[in-house]
């Protein structure tokens, strides 16, 4: 994973509405209108959020198989997997640092 990709993922997820979209898409692919309704925001605003999510590589759009005018949004797995890995690495880091901190406190105890 390049750092740039992680940055883009974090920036895209820095907005609560976009996190909501990701949560919804985790269940199944959905139409933009459906997403706007579920997140209770206006359609144009949802379009902007979807654009940002697409640009960040978190989400991809497809055309509906029955109606090509309708766009379907789905989650791309890699950025989320990368983010999960970063969280795991961060966790491992602090686990190690906290253990080292504790050992240091014990050693320097008077």
């Amino acid at each position, binding site marked *: 994973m*390049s*750092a*740039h990709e*992680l*940055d883009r993922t*974090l*920036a895209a*997820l*820095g907005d*609560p*509405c976009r*996190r*909501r979209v*990701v*949560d*919804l898409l*985790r*269940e199944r692919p959905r139409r933009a209108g459906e997403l706007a309704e579920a*997140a*209770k925001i206006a359609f144009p605003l949802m379009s902007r959020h979807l654009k940002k999510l697409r640009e960040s590589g978190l989400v991809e759009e497809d055309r509906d198989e029955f109606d090509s005018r309708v766009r379907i949004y789905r989650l791309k797995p890699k950025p989320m997997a990368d*983010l*999960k890995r*970063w*969280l*795991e690495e*961060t*966790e*491992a*880091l*602090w*686990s*190690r*640092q*906290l*253990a*080292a*901190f*504790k*050992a*240091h*406190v*014990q050693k*320097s*105890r008077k």
Partner: protein
Amino acid sequence: MTSKVFLALRVPADPMRAFKVFTQEIASWWKPSGLFRVSDTGDGRLAFEPGEGGRLLTTFEDGSTFEIGRISVWEPGKRLVFAWRQANFSAEHSTEVEVCFEPVGAETRISIEHRAWDTIPRRHAARHGFPEEATLQRAADWWRNSLHVFKERIAGSDDA
């Protein structure tokens, strides 16, 4: 959906001393992690500039420095919050670390919360106006999947 890492441990020191050692002696206890310089395995020598607005800096052997982040909360013996940017993060992006010190008898429970976004603690999913739904809960479970194993490990290593 949550994006934070949370860990806690008990250390044999009162909160004031734990805070002091954490901030003033970080160069002594920090283990190299390779996070702050892409081309090097060393992290340099870490140091907090005391007080709000101070920096968490690391200084490499060649004298160059890297700013890991700014301190936003400095409450000795209680709480410390600072920004966290690894070498591979872009300049404008950072995450946030909150360290809390709580007395437990004569000792201290030190906890670390590392948040990938949200610059203030998110206690309730409903804060942003979204109802806390089963879907959110499931998503949170998905995130926490990996954390369970870890919590057990910490609990096992916590001899307090």
